[in-house]
């Protein structure tokens, strides 16, 4: 499932306008930004980290950075949603790189304690998520951002180009190189993750 980066009703103020109001002490803007952005930051962190407590820490940390930068925010230079997405991605990458273990394979994940149907599928899904997150953490930042925006957020190449401040051709190159690097980082894990015979 993908979620548009700027999914909100057109008659509502955009995030930059809300952030400017927050910087002038508008409590309603604080609430609106919290409700609009925290779920996205948390969902992104969960997808990369797979741990509720860690994802909550990252989301709270990223939002705190947003509150602190609000008085100095330069409207028009960057989208708030893209800035936050990048902060969350970098915070998650730092945590993934500090983790002692490499990517998880299915047979390395603990046996499910839930005997209900679907437990094995959930285990497989978690192994895939963890393997992909660990591989993404090995990519250079711009390749990682291009791949994540394209596949997790459903952004088009022109949208990614605008958000990263590069040409569409550069986005195509970043995405292609990013996926080749992912394939290299995930080498030997296709079968364990259920993608071969």
């Amino acid at each position, binding site marked *: 499932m993908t979620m548009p980066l700027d999914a909100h009703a057109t008659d509502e103020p955009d995030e930059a306008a809300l952030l400017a109001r*927050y910087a002038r002490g508008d409590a309603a803007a604080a609430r609106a*930004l919290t409700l609009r952005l925290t779920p996205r930051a948390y969902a992104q962190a*969960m997808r990369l980290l797979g741990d509720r407590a860690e994802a909550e820490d990252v*989301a709270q940390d990223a939002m705190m950075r947003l509150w602190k930068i609000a*008085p100095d925010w330069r409207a028009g230079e960057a989208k708030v949603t893209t800035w936050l997405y990048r902060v969350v991605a970098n915070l998650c990458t730092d945590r993934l790189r500090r983790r002692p273990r490499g990517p998880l394979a299915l047979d390395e994940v603990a046996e499910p304690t839930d005997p209900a149907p679907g437990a094995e599928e959930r285990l497989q*899904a978690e192994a895939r998520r963890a393997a992909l997150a660990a591989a993404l953490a090995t990519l250079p930042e711009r390749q990682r951002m291009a791949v994540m925006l394209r596949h997790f957020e459903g952004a088009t190449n022109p949208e990614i180009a605008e958000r990263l401040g590069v040409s569409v051709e550069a986005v195509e190159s970043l995405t292609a190189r990013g996926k080749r690097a992912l394939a290299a980082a995930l080498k030997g894990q296709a079968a364990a993750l259920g993608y071969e015979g």
Partner: protein
Amino acid sequence: MTDRQDKVNWVDALLDDVSGAAPADPSGDLMARVLADAEAAMPAPGGAPVREGLLRQVLAGLGGWLSVGGLVAATAVGFAVGLGALSTVGLDALWQGEYGAYYDDTLGFSVNGWDFEEG
């Protein structure tokens, strides 16, 4: 299809599968913590404008117009005292080497470690 394409294709499938998972919902506790952070870090109503002018930022750093007034007054007094001292000692004292003699006799070059550097 090349081997290289095969490798990327299964990565595409992996990306699709992981992105297709339902997004996790934040807990009420997280939302409450983030909102508490926002309110704690929020400038006072009508406070910090998003982009202040350079002059306003410099003045704010110095403590406002009142402090700048005091700074100007103190500078004027210091200048007047300086003029008085010169009229007593004479402008020649500035270039007759008295300070240089004090520096060499009392402190010497070693005060800055130059003797070590120059061997």
